[in-house]
């Protein structure tokens, strides 16, 4: 079964770009326009009956978003459980962000990125889905 792709970015064009880039490998997509929506979608995806046994999703999240930053949401989600298969996108890949992404077990992708590097990063993240 293919994992669902959760795209979280406050910029609609950016979400479209990610969606169209990954369309072939991940036809099932959920979008979130801010941190609150991302958290809700994460919650929803993992309590749905089909995925409860095996949460199969990959997250592509921007750091800078309204309400909660992508990192904060993933941090909260990560708490105590297994690694989150996530690609974290940011314009400022400073040491703090790098360290937090590393602790999450996610993959950092600095803006601007190419479509190939996005594809590679998401494929790598998908491989980390616990099975």
């Amino acid at each position, binding site marked *: 079964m293919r994992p669902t792709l959760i795209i979280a970015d406050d910029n609609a*064009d950016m979400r479209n*770009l990610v969606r169209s*880039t990954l369309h072939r490998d991940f036809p099932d997509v959920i979008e979130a326009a801010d941190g609150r929506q991302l958290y809700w979608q994460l919650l929803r995806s993992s309590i749905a009956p089909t995925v409860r046994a095996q949460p199969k999703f990959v997250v592509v999240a*921007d750091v800078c978003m309204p309400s909660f930053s992508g990192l904060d949401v993933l941090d909260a989600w990560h708490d105590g459980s297994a690694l989150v298969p996530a690609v974290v996108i940011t314009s*400022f890949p400073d040491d703090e962000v790098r360290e937090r992404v590393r602790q999450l077990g996610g993959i950092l992708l600095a*803006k601007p990125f190419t479509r190939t590097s996005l594809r590679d990063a998401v494929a790598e993240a998908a491989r980390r889905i616990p099975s």
Partner: protein
Amino acid sequence: MTFVRRFITPLSIAATLAIGAADYVTGVAITLLQLAYLAPLVAATWLRGRTLGLAIAVLASACVGAISFTFGDTLWVSAINTIGCAGMFVVVVLLNDRLRHYVERERLQRWAAVEQLRHAERLNVIGVLAAGVAHELGTPLNVIAGNAELIADDASPEERRKAARTILNQTDKISAIITHLLAFGRRNHGGRAVVELDRVARSAAELIGSTARKRNARIDVVEGSGPVRVRAADAQVEQVVSNLLLNAIHSMPRGGTVRVRTGVETRGGETRGGERTFGSITVEDEGQGIAEADLPRIFDPFFTTKDVGEGTGLGLSVSYGIVQDHGGSIEVSSVVGRGSSFVVLLPVADRA
């Protein structure tokens, strides 16, 4: 005061002669009235410098000598009187002149320092904004790159058209951001033009928008009843509003809404000058408010209640300076725990 300043030379000479005449008429001679000569002496030195001071000293000494001689002192005694007084006068003039130079130098240094600080504060605000702007630019650039790749790769004609449209949209966004930055960075002191406050309020809100979002704050620009026009340097007014917005956001650590409103207000109805009409920008937050003890000091340079490294304590004082330069004022009201409201008043542009 300007009158005294402009006519200090004839005034001090006249005053000296008047004191001499009074001395002669009353016949008090010597003692007390001699001290009265110090008044024109000091005034002349302070306002015009050492040369005039010394001239007045000579004149005053001559008066003293003449009166002393007239009232029956011998030539020798008169001469000694004159020389004694002259010595005192010259010492006073020289000391006064020293003091004058010292004060003048201090004032110049202070002025230079304040100018420098204003510039530094400007750079600091720009630094904060640059971080926000870099983020704002990063996303559209990325979208452009991605869509360009999409066009280059595979893509159907329809997809290509869509990608090209997206790229155009994003370049528009980027140009808008750059226009903002340029307007903000320009050191525009003289160039005043008719400025619409509503537009300035909106563009400042856009500029601070990403900082606000990061701190869970929202900036609401409330539409006024119509455009409010003032004569001002728009980049400077934008800086003032940006400063107020940043302060408002910093005062709400848990987030909240900042309301920006423009309007027209009248002030000064109770004074002789009559009512004056101002364009106003009101920035209202739901933050911590300002303690009553702090209120009188918030416009002082270096006064800050922010954490170390967060504020320089110059934002409001610079804003105050800018608004004063424009012949306006900033009004503050605040309730601790409820929020603060800052009203920037700028004289409305003459109908033209």
